[in-house]
């Protein structure tokens, strides 16, 4: 593999990692507050659908993004209601949200556009343009540094840069602010927060809302940046890969960046080389497609580092008697 190919694969990794990164950070806020969320997939899907629909109708990519966030927040609200207010099973609620998104996107898509669940293809203002960073053209001819700057770092859409900016922002919010302290506390021991006179419900809803916004961005990027429109089931399990990345990242923002980049890289490699020939053995394309899931299972099995989830995760908060 030559240097140019490597840059191309890395470039593609960054693009593919971006939705995972948003979704992973989304899950991080929710789960750090003690609300498990296996509905990331559904929220991304709903966001992708509504953002593509609105962008297609209005021709504005940013209105599309807002619509995506709105769709995702709506589902977050349902999850909050089930998991926080009604103290239901968070996993079951997540499953329901995934199906709700999967069914409603097709139902509404068919009703609005009559394209069998797809949205009309997006062009021009309806899609994210890539941003050329300053001096990219000037630096491009330089050996080594040139391609890295001009092709790998420059030339992504705004959401990619926003995604990367979210990492330090999330770390700052989590570890340097009052809100972050309370959020982490609520995921570890909600009773401590409650007896300190702070509303557990309030903090958890805020966390779930942040999760909704980030999932919205993930879905919007999928439909408006990575692809040009919405297709049935277009998230294709990315929500679950993000969840796996979250576990791999031990629920920490900077680790999340690393984990999602790795999974993005895997997907990029899989796209670039459908079949990998290792000497006499040809690895079938289906194996490469399944690889992220297999790696996830291996990670979950704890063969690569054991992670401790937030102590109060998955448990609805009930004042003990």
């Amino acid at each position: 593999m030559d240097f140019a190919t490597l840059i191309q694969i890395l470039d593609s990794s960054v693009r593919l990692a971006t939705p995972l990164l948003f979704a992973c950070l989304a899950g991080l806020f929710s789960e750090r507050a003690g609300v498990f969320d296996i509905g990331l997939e559904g929220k991304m899907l709903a966001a992708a659908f509504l953002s593509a629909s609105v962008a297609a109708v209005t021709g504005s990519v940013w209105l599309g993004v807002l619509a995506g966030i709105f769709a995702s927040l709506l589902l977050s609200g349902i999850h909050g209601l089930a998991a926080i207010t009604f103290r239901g099973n968070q996993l079951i609620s997540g499953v329901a949200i995934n199906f709700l998104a999967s069914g409603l996107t097709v139902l509404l898509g068919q009703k609005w556009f009559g394209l069998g669940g797809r949205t009309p293809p997006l062009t021009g203002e309806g899609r994210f343009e890539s941003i050329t960073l300053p001096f990219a053209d000037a630096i491009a001819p330089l050996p080594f540094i040139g391609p890295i700057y001009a092709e790998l770092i420059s030339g992504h859409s705004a959401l990619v840069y926003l995604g990367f900016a979210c990492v330090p922002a999330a770390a700052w919010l989590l570890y340097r602010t009052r809100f972050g302290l309370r959020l982490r506390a609520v995921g570890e021991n909600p009773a401590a927060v409650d007896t300190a006179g702070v509303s557990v419900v309030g903090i958890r809803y805020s966390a779930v809302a942040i999760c909704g916004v980030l999932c919205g961005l993930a879905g919007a990027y999928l439909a408006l940046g990575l692809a040009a429109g919405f297709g049935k089931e277009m998230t294709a399990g990315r929500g679950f890969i993000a969840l796996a990345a979250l576990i791999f990242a031990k629920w920490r923002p900077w680790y999340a960046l690393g984990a999602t980049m790795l999974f993005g890289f895997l997907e990029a490699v899989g796209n670039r080389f459908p079949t990998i020939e290792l000497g006499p053995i040809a690895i079938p394309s289906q194996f490469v497609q399944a690889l992220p899931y297999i790696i996830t299972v291996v990670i979950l099995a704890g063969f690569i580092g054991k992670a401790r989830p937030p102590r109060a995760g998955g448990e609805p908060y009930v004042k003990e008697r």
Partner: protein
Amino acid sequence: MTGNDTLGRQATAAPAGAPLAIELCGISKAFGPVQANKDISIQVAKGSIHGIIGENGAGKSTLMSILYGFYKADAGEIYISGNLTPIPDSQSAIRAGIGMVFQHFKLVQNFTVLENVILGAEGGALLRGAMASARKSLTDLAREYELDVDPDAVIEDLSVGHQQRVEILKALYRQADILILDEPTGVLTPAEADQLFRILNGLRDQGKTVILITHKLREIMEITDTVSVMRRGQMTATVKTKDTNPEELAELMVGRKVLLHVEKKPATPGEMVLEVENLRVRDEVGVERLKGVSLTIRAGEILGIAGVAGNGQSELLEVLGGIARGTGTVRLNGQEIALTAAADGQSRRARGIAHVPEDRQHLGLIMDFSAWENVAFGYHHAPEYQKSALLMDNDAIRADTVSKMERYDVRPPIPTLAAKSFSGGNQQKIVVAREMDRNPDLLLVGQPTRGVDIGAIEFIHKQIIALRDAGKAVLLVSVELDEIMSLSDRIAVMFDGQIMGERDPAKTDERELGLLMAGVVK
């Protein structure tokens, strides 16, 4: 006792003219069908230590949780320093100058002391400034009240006593004038408890008001100025501590004379039943919780294990009962028992080891199962409960349950009722019936009377003695020193995963055992 009567006694209890810190009027609270507090009124003078005593389930903690805004009262009014103060949530309680140290600490285990102290009182959206100022006031408070803790220590690394100090610091940092402590000594050694009392006295001298919830008469007599007695959700009396005595308080607590001594004949130890040598257990994290325990029990003998909770007693019961794994040698009737298998309760039962676990709600019973299903619990392989190789004989289990319920006086005697629908004492009787009725060679029994009403305590104690008199070996673990002293034929004291020494109950006293419990060996 009527409300008027209660108020009548209160008038004499609160010193005339002394300003009141707290006044509760007609507080009532129900949890579903259970009336936890019923029309409770109480007055506490500023700058005093007020005790609230009562049995488990008398409603003490509920009352104080209402005062702290953790629960909302169904009826009643709260006055703080003479002003009507509604307390709908903990935030309001904190604002009214009330701090509470719960029985189960409300600390975030992986946070530092400092983070725990400022949680909810950060003083700004960013942590940096709050941390610095909190650090300073923490040092000041620590100096003022003898509450030394390292502000940067992580909670899970601290001893229980130190964690409790963090809880007190949390309240003081919020400038609490009224401090409520719920059963604060349950997890402390006698020496640590004495130190806590010194701190509380110091707080009172600074003009703070302290409310101490406990079920231990000794503590009430030792430290409080006034005391209120609760029974079955009602306040039965409020008196000056110096005008009363333990006997009177005990009678007020339970409504009749209490039999403090258990009748029993001298033991006649027989053959060796249990021999434990150099038993070691590590927990999931790899911390050694049992550090080479050796002990023996003969037939017809009760060995009592005294100690502060969390010093390895639970692990001892668990490894002997086949719940946890360990290393070392354990022999039952001369036969060695393998300690390496996980969830080995079946083979232990088959060898004649029965186990009344410390935590009946989470270990001993399945609360959602009916009584008869719980009677088969752990004995679901017993031949008399099987219909064929595959099928269980549910009718036989139900019939056996009816018979056990009658003999062990379980009320109500309905085998199909779910375990959670029975009172604590009757739940424990179901466990006791299941475990003791098979005449085990060795009975492991932990906290047999925790959360059990007085009547059931007597019954359960008699059953344990009867088993001993039938020539069986009993290993009794309890954090209630009284229980250990009155039931045991020999007492071993555990501290930090080791046995500190063995004493003859007739030739020792609480002071000596207390020193051993604190790890002090003479």
